């Protein structure tokens, strides 16, 4: 550091007057340091997004030349009953998966938070489903929900109920997919809730106990309000992932018969928006329309994220 002491480091004042260093020139190395993310995002995020918008205004088979189509793909999208059915399917599956999942995750988190022994074992066990390959999970669930030999029907029959052809009826398909998603995401969200729970100061709980609040009251008056930002985060993330479900129905409902693997089972009951987008693009070779469907998916996801945000936010203002 001796050299640094001999020669004073240049400062703003020592620069010739009239040429103040701009933010960019002064901090370029800081910008450079954070640039990799933005460059990668530009390359693999923004440019493809822009390109898909461009493609959606054309007719294109993915290989040959593009033909300008204006807004006709979007006009067709609006009147496409298959697309609206896929929107409906997605929302139903999302709701069937998300609400039980959030409830279970919350219960799990509260239990994990109060567990004394084997804490880390539990955390690991609950997180495991989330890092398991969806494809493997879907294959297992496919046999769990199979009609004659599935575990679910075995349980139903054990309590004296009838068999349900889960993967062959519209509601059965939706419930099977939603169960799979719930199973997969409960642990992940429980860990997030747990992190939230641990940020709540223990003084609040002590104060509540002093005031004579029981565990239920404590939960609703302290834990839940304090967890609101975490709840919002979990809801938004679940919405974004749930509305983009693809592998679950695709693997669960594919079959080896001579037909599309993106059709989503009998009556298209399991055809989600992204599955429909895939079918249009890669089965039907209609890249222009596929891109338009993808933008439709984007709008639906945005809409839902706004609704979520407003719901959770407004309650906070009261």
């Amino acid at each position: 550091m001796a050299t640094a002491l001999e020669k004073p480091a240049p400062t703003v004042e020592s620069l010739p007057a009239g040429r103040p260093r701009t933010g960019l020139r002064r901090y370029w190395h800081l910008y450079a340091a954070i640039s990799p993310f933005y460059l990668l995002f530009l390359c693999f995020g923004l440019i493809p997004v822009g390109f898909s918008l461009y493609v959606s205004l054309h007719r294109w088979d993915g290989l040959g030349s593009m033909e300008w189509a204006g807004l006709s793909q979007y006009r067709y999208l609006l009147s496409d009953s298959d697309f609206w059915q896929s929107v409906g399917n997605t929302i139903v599956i999302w709701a069937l998966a998300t609400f039980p999942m959030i409830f279970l995750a919350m219960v799990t988190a509260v239990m994990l938070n109060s567990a004394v022994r084997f804490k880390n074992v539990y955390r690991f066990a609950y997180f495991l489903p989330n890092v398991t390959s969806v494809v493997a999970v879907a294959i297992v669930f496919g046999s769990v929900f199979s009609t004659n030999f599935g575990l679910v029907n075995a349980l139903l029959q054990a309590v004296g109920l009838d068999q349900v052809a889960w993967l062959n009826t519209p509601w059965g398909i939706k419930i099977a997919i939603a169960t799979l998603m719930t199973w997969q995401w409960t642990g992940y969200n429980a860990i997030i809730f747990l992190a939230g729970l641990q940020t709540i100061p223990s003084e609040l709980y002590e104060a509540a106990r002093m005031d004579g609040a029981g565990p239920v009251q404590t939960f609703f008056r302290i834990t839940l309000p304090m967890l609101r930002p975490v709840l919002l985060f979990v809801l938004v993330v679940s919405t974004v992932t749930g509305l983009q479900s693809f592998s679950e129905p695709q693997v669960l409902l594919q079959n080896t018969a001579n037909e599309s693997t993106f059709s989503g089972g009998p009556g298209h009951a399991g055809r989600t928006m992204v599955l429909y987008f895939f079918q249009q693009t890669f089965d039907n070779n209609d890249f222009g329309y596929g891109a338009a469907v993808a933008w439709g998916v984007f709008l639906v996801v945005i809409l839902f994220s706004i609704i979520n945000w407003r719901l959770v936010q407004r309650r906070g203002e009261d």
Partner: protein
Amino acid sequence: MRLSRRGLLRAGLAGTAATALGGLASGCAVPTGSTGRNMVLWYWDGGLGDTVVRKAKARYEAHVDLQAIKIGGYYRSKLLTTMTGRAHIPDIAGLKGEDMASYLPDADQFVDLRTLGADTYKSRYLPWKWEQGLADDGTMVGFPIDCGPVAHLYQYSVFQKAGLPYEPDDVSRELNTWEKFFAAGEQLRRRIPGTCLLTDITSVFTNVVQQGSKRYVDKDRHFIGDQAHVRDAWALAVEAKQRRIVSDLVTGTPDQLSAVQDGKLPSQLGASWATYDLKSGVPKTKGKWRVAQMPVRPSNNGGSFLSITKACREPEQAFRIITWILNAANQAQGYVDAGLFPSTPATYDMRQLREPDPFFGGQVTTDVFGPAAQKIVVAYNSPYDVALSQPILDEIKNVGVLGKDPEKAWSDAMGKCRRIAKHLGVSY
């Protein structure tokens, strides 16, 4: 040299920037195809015989480094993105049979194999298969790998027990029309309750359509899926459902496999490769099966092609490799390696195809599949067939599985087809 924190940061940044710039610069120089020396071949697992690929590498080693890459996952989308990206395009690309019609409108992305002398090989291959590799203007895009002749696979002892013909020749001869086939299904269900002849309604529908020479859209981009050939197939499929010879199980599910194993689903209309699905899906039924001709006439299901892309620098060399890999002797090896049913009739008499198959009770299955492959009719496959057959296939499935009213299902299917045709610029 002293290492200050700032110095380290600068050095790190400079390094990162240099790497990034280097990456960008080399990015500009990404090879669009290969040099003459390197030759890249794309195919998928089971797309070519492994032994044949290995031998081809060794054989052409003196001239080219043949890099054969198995592409996993959704093959077509990967090939399309690579070709559209104009970088690292394979020299030789496998094209799956079911995707073939969709590549043909972009024949200009491939080398016209006629210019390399493909016509001299034509007589050695199945004519209908050869035809499938040609674009509308006659450009030859795909060189035939294999084909998938469909036959009637059935369980010998179940047929015997039901009082049906059970020797392959008798089954071929006596169940040679759909009417006789359905009647046999009814007899089967009467004699052995709880048994269905076929798994699903779709197998009747698709096979009847595929037996004919017309599909859903014709060469003039006109929708023909509402015409007699599709209506008849629809009517037959509905009849199969009404006469209760199809189950409501889904192919490939544990339920279906166990029904097949128990002899509750003793029959399938399966392509040559379906025998491998049977062997892996229901291995315990070994020896119980036989193969006979399907009713009316054989159809085809599957079978792929090799193509040379425009990015290839040495098309002549690539063509030599392709024609060698797909010659009659190597197709016999492909049959042994990967169950690829040869598209070269000369192969059907070779030793490898004359092996008795213990899974089929020692029957020589080529005796059925071989003649079947030669009787398949030429059909025009349109790039719009997939989009415009989907609503019909969906609705026939609804009839089969959900019990939808056939009349309503047909009119729903036609309504959807009309909309899709309009959207795709196909006349209705």
